[in-house]
């Protein structure tokens, strides 16, 4: 049975359970007697017991069944001719799967055609098992719950306990995601560091993953130029653009602008923040890059590249403006009005009040905001993929080409390399480094902001 049909059937069963439990509960209600639960509580109790066990089963099943089907196919005699595990084997198997599911009409590999019946048979068998088990679970759960629908049964407490469990499970998804990220990054990066010494990776200055010497892979996988490029583009150039603009916009909007102006400009900044990064990347590569290159050549920089750090960094800075502006806005708003009023009452002009009283008082909040912005800038991908270069270069010249960690992750993972070559695994090592750095930046920034907010509350 297909997925949607099965889900509809389960929902139907749950509805039948709901109706029958409600009818039974209504039947035993008598006047002048107090019950712990309304009929609706009994109904929901049965409905939840009908639908939750099969759903949990199907959730797990949809994750493990593709592997089970593949195993069943590999056990057939036709699979004996398959090449050893690798890219070719994976492509034959996926072609056979597509044939079996009716997604493809012809196969390039004759072996895929031979495996198709085995795939179809295994798929059908496991689908049948899944349907049967899901329906059995639904009937068993619903039936058991139905037998408990009695006048003395505290259905309300039980139902609420189930709902509470669901709430808790939903909030655990966040922890599971974090654990998933950490484990998968550490696992793959661990395989990388088993082959490449960590010191070579972290402190080596030569990065050229296209030609990796199998005897000494660390020699061409030194990521220092990438770290420098990331820092240069994300933390230096982008911040040099975003900080003055963002901070001054926030000051103007909170201290000078009339409410009418504010009501127009704030949504405009939100739009600037909502533009997808791929659009900024296209804008940088197509519109900004030629101007910057011509300008650099004009002032006599011979090595100027059209994929310069300056282009990617400045467009990234524009992207970050609204982010800094809104965080600085919050920080300025958190300074007690009495400080501002006191300064103005002493005769200071608004600009003196802002630069000598408000900004120093709001400084921790602003610094926290800048750290968050840096963490966001160094994790930004599409702008550097489209506007920065792919060649690692340890340089201070903003007109020369520079590459970043995120750009290299994309480049490393889009080739046709097999899953456990040092090249692919290097992407996970870079990802782990990026995750650790942004995690530390976020933690510091959040704790700075929190402590500062508590100081004024």
């Amino acid at each position, binding site marked *: 049975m297909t997925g949607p049909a099965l889900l509809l059937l389960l929902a139907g069963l749950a509805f039948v359970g709901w109706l029958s439990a409600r009818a039974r509960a209504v039947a035993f209600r008598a006047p002048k007697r107090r019950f712990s639960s309304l009929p609706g509580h009994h109904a929901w109790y049965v409905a939840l017991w009908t639908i939750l066990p099969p759903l949990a089963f199907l959730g797990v099943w949809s994750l*493990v069944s593709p592997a089970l089907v593949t195993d069943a196919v590999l056990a057939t005699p036709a699979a004996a001719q398959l090449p050893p595990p690798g890219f070719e084997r994976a492509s034959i198997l996926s072609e056979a799967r597509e044939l079996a599911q009716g997604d493809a009409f012809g196969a390039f590999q004759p072996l895929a055609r031979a495996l198709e019946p085995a795939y179809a048979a295994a798929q059908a068998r496991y689908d049948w098992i899944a349907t049967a088990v899901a329906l059995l679970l639904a009937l068993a759960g619903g039936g058991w719950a139905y037998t408990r629908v009695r006048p003395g049964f505290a259905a309300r407490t039980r139902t609420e306990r189930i709902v509470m469990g669901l709430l808790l499970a939903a909030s655990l998804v966040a922890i599971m995601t974090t654990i998933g990220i950490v484990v998968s990054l550490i696992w793959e990066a661990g395989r990388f560091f088993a082959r490449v010494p960590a010191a070579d990776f972290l402190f080596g200055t030569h990065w050229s993953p296209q030609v990796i010497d199998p005897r000494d892979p660390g020699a061409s996988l030194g990521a220092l130029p990438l770290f420098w490029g990331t820092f240069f583009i994300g933390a230096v150039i982008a911040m040099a653009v975003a900080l003055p603009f963002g901070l001054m916009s926030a000051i103007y909007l909170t201290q000078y602008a009339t409410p009418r102006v504010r009501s127009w*400009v704030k949504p405009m900044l939100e739009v600037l923040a*909502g533009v997808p990064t791929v659009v900024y990347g296209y804008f940088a590569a*197509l519109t900004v890059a030629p101007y910057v290159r011509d300008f650099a050549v004009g002032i006599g920089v011979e090595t100027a590249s059209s994929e310069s750090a300056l282009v990617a960094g400045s467009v990234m800075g524009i992207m970050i403006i609204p982010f800094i502006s809104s965080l600085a806005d919050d920080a300025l708003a958190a300074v007690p009005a009495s400080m501002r009023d006191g300064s103005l009452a002493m005769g200071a002009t608004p600009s003196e009040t802002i630069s000598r009283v408000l900004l120093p008082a709001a400084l921790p909040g602003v610094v926290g905001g800048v750290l968050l912005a840096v963490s966001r800038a160094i*994790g930004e991908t599409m702008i550097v993929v489209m506007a920065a270069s792919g060649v690692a270069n340890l340089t201070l010249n903003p007109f020369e080409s520079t590459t970043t960690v995120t750009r290299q992750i994309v480049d490393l993972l889009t080739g046709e390399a097999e899953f456990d070559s040092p090249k692919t695994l290097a992407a996970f090592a870079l990802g782990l480094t990026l995750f650790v750095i942004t995690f530390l930046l976020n933690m510091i920034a959040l704790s700075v902001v929190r402590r500062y907010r508590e100081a004024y509350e």
Partner: protein
Amino acid sequence: MSNAAPFSTRRPTDWATPAMQSRVRRRYRAERRFRLLGLAAVTLSGAFLLFLLGSMLLRGAGGFLETRVAMPIDFARASLDVDPRRLQGRAADLALAGAGLEGAVDDAAVAAFGPDLGGRILSDGAWLRVREAIKDDPSVLSRRVVMSLPVASPIDVAAKGPGSVEAEAVVASLRSGDLLSTGLNREFLLSADSTDPTRAGIWGALKGSILTMLVTLLLAFPIGLLAALYLEEYAPKNRWTDLIEVSINNLAAVPSIIFGLLGLALFLGTFGLPRSAPLVGGLTLALLTMPVIVIASRNAIKAVPPSIRDAALGVGASPIQVVFHHVLPLALPGILTGTIIGMARALGETAPLLMIGMRAFIAAPPDGITDPATVLPVQVFLWSDEVGRGFVEKTSAAIVVLLVFLLAMNALAIHLRNRFETRW
């Protein structure tokens, strides 16, 4: 009080002296400068936005249009072997394709424009237009008709703006004969990707985006909402709750490409789900969007005043009833606003989807969530990499479509916020 000492022996400042007056003037000048600086920052940020949107619109406008050339086709003389009775219903496509229509159109082009130009003036998809015209009116098969057919990409580029010298010359000669016209490019909105810019469309990517967003919404909204309710209303103050809060706040700030790596290692590597599928894209984006929804929902729930809860508890509601019957309905507008903003962010996300392989060339729109697909922002990225000059305007046009969707979602969110925002 006879011997009261003066509080200060300093004489009061004489503001009328020139020194003092110039000092005041200097301070006021600094004030004006500072204020202008702020105004300049805001204005320039606005100018950036206008420039960005304006340049995309200007470049993209051409992508929605196509250049057509008027060309006579003499079907009576073309050796088309078509039985007019078969031109009804679904058999028509097959009958016409088998009849050598494509060759007949090419022959007609050569007859009209000469052997050199005739071979490269028409778009590869031009004969499909002729096919549609024949299906609409089979009687043309016995006549000589003049049809407006889309031109090939180099000529299309030259007709809309500066193109290659050769194509410019062709356009000039066609213009002098008044043969060129411009019309709406319907294929751009209705077809999928193609290697020929005149035939490439965004419907495939748009459909992929819709399917991906559907998966994301179905997963991220319920999970995010339930997690927010738990954390805000029920969670005990202990180390576990702190851990959940820290991981949600941190996940909201993790670079999106890391989620792509997670999707690659977990969904593709460990679970063996199909590559390039909206299902995997939706799962990955759901993990990315969930923290945004949780944070927005918590703020909305926090804004509901405690008196509501106390009143409900006071008349005997259970904690679950308090939340689901009273708090949730009041917080729902804020929660929906946060959800729409999170979904808008997911719709524009590109990097994590590149990681899970949604960057393949896909020439047919996906039919389900496990079919290979691409999404709108990835399509923009793919076209921006194409060498053909015809793709420049297609890229910008795709960006315009993407921005229209995002602006519509943001406008809806702002509208919801203004309409239902309650100040307690």
